[in-house]
């Protein structure tokens, strides 16, 4: 039992944190709100650092790492409200392609995947492709990151059950849908399923869709951790500076206890997210090799899925509580456009509902606890 990140992982987080502190300031963020885009100079920088290609096999120009390696970086992305689709591209799309390419178990010494997949993986690692990934549910629902995406991974109902399709931007017509947070780049995707675009059917498609939903839950939860930490930090800073009744408002117990409550929620959300990332990696043949090989049992898969839901439920609640408390502590100033707080509030609200709300995941957890009945 060793439940901690490695020095490498911590160094990587620190490096990315320092880069984002410079490249993703709230000024950058405000600019992105004005003209959101998928691939930016910042995206290129992240690609150069190896962040974008983290889950792409080494043979295809990536780092061949897993969700445990990615989660700390997603936390940092959340902390700065990173506008680019790191979650969709690196946490979701690339692993789907890797799985399809049958690189499982030997990810670091990849045999040739089929040509198209290889090219796409290489392009992702090089920062040349940003993805949007569809969630299970109504095909008509707006897609995060769709507006400006190069690559689409889309589930669709097929003749014999669910199917998974992969298309490039040329084959998908996107009509933008406005979100409270413009950097979400929501869009409605209109496209024609075809034998060429179909990459999986039946059981394989179902498992890809399920695993993608679990990875999305954990990756989104990781971003929410960073967002919560940022909002609590902003409120604490403000509470130290702002004076009323002749002292810093942070010295009032009411303010202390508001922030302490949010901090405790965050403290306990973190290990839940890290543990879920580890559990998912254990059930991912493409990554499990990294850790001492573990046979992926059905039981382990169910437990991993439950861990993913626990992580998302906890992180969603922690982030919405941090948002509520941070706004209350800021008072009227936090309600202004000038104050940076709203940039993070809006993203936190959007992500807390994305890929399943806290309540949605709590009911998933309970069903899996009482088992099929």
């Amino acid at each position: 039992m060793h439940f901690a990140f490695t020095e490498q992982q911590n160094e990587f987080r620190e490096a990315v944190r320092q880069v984002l502190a410079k490249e993703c300031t709230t000024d950058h963020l405000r600019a992105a709100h004005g003209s959101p885009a998928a691939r930016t100079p910042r995206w290129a920088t992240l690609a150069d650092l190896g962040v974008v290609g983290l889950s792409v096999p080494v043979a295809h120009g990536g780092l061949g790492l897993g969700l445990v390696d990615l989660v700390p970086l997603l936390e940092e992305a959340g902390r700065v409200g990173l506008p680019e689709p790191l979650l969709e591209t690196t946490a979701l799309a690339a692993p789907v392609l890797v799985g399809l390419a049958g690189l499982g178990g030997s990810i670091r010494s990849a045999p040739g995947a089929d040509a198209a997949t290889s090219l796409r993986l290489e392009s992702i690692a090089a920062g040349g492709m940003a993805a949007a990934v569809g969630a299970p549910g109504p095909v008509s629902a707006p897609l995060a990151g769709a507006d400006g995406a190069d690559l689409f991974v889309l589930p669709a109902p097929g003749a014999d059950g669910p199917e998974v399709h992969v298309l490039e931007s040329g084959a998908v017509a996107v009509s933008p849908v406005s979100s409270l947070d413009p950097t979400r780049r929501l869009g409605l995707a209109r496209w024609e399923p075809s034998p060429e675009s179909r990459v999986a059917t039946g059981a394989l498609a179902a498992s890809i869709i399920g695993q993608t939903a679990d990875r999305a839950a954990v990756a989104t939860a990781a971003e929410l951790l960073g967002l919560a930490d940022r909002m609590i930090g902003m409120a604490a800073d403000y509470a130290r500076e702002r004076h009323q009744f002749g002292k810093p408002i942070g010295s009032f117990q009411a303010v202390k206890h508001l922030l302490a409550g949010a901090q405790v929620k965050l403290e306990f959300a973190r290990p839940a997210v890290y543990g879920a990332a580890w559990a998912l990696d254990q059930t991912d043949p493409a990554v499990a090799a990294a850790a001492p090989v573990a046979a992926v049992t059905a039981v382990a898969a169910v437990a991993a899925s439950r861990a993913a839901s626990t992580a998302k439920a906890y992180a969603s609640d922690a982030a919405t509580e941090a948002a509520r408390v941070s706004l209350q502590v800021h008072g009227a100033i936090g309600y202004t456009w000038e104050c940076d707080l709203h940039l993070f509030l809006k993203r936190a609200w959007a992500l807390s509902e994305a890929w399943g709300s806290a309540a949605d995941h709590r009911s998933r957890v309970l069903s899996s606890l009482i088992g099929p009945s």
Partner: protein
Amino acid sequence: MVAGNLAVCQISTDNPIGPGPALDRPWTDRRTTAERPMGPTMDAPMDLRFTPAQEAFRTEARAWLAAHVPEPGSLPSLDTAEGFEAHRAWEREMCADRWSVVSWPEEFGGRGVGIVEWLIFEEEYWRAEAPLRVSQNGVFLLAPTLFEFGTDGQKQRFLPAMASATEIWCQGWSEPDAGSDLAGIRSRAVRSPDDDGWLLTGQKTWASRGAFAEWCFGLFRTDPGAERHRGLTYFLIEMGSPGVTVRPIPQIDGETGFAEIFFEDVLVPDEQVLGGVDRGWNVAMATAGSERGLSLRSPARYGEAARRLVALYRRCLVDDPARAARHADAVAQAWMDAEAYRLNTLWTATRVLDGGSVGPEASANKIHWSETDLAIHRTALALLGPEAELHGTGTVAPWLDGYLFALAGPIYAGTNEIQRNVVAERMLGLPRA
């Protein structure tokens, strides 16, 4: 390593570099710990599984408990004289086979295993529905302090008797006017006329096990001149000493969980001073730390309660599906709270194993476990509905008793209000009032 890493950032931010060879990026170095010039377990990949040795330890513990744990509920209440002795006997039985203090060194009756093994033992202990630990105050609160501040003589004198429950300890912290404000302690100690020790005078209260314990550990003011936190000394006191009077305090459930202890010129020899005269506050804080930290409440306790809650919910799904549906969300949340506590404990344990320590996180911990305990029991009573008041009923009693006990959680070991102050001031850097 860090330097190299910073260097990379400089380059990559000031003018982005192309995807150079992997080794430009230290975090892409896939060599194993063994192969790399680096610290001990520090760089082991994340892994939540237990080692084969640890699993073997679990198997051994499970087997022993299966063979020895008395029928659940068969022991009389810990808070009765009879029950106290029954629980003492159980501790003796555990001690005989070295299960009472697994994490202690063998010379004191333990097995010298690590914190992970202790957590595993706790999981098995709660899963087996074994009796409450009557030695808890000594084993979990005093022992860590003895190991840290005690002389060899003190360790030899007190630890083995504690491990075998030959001597059971109670805690003498709070006073009628010093609860949340522990530094407000008034009980005092003055040098004895023959200068062979100290004479203790004053009143302590809320001493769990106080009604029956043989020994008491507590703080007394040895320097009346010094202000608040200074001038306090940590004493180990034999309850049988002349001048000690105990008044049991019946609690909300009618039982006597704790007691008031009155001291009147109680002579305590110098060798029963722990950690030095006038240094009591620092010594005590170490205990308070462990009380709120890892050692007091093991995750297994809540994990087991959550498991029983889910079972209760499953039964309710059959008996009264509509009621079950109304509380489904709370059941899930309570289970997740226990699970998050388990994961957070493993996270903290790893930090400790890697040489880190438990700071103000101990306060966050205390808030979380006390609220989790309440959430689990409140939800169980909600599922029981009108039955919840039937304290004589077998299925209800454990939940109702557990709820009454959980209600004290936000109060003892430092109220949650005090803990929130600590979190705000020490984790978030907010100014003291």
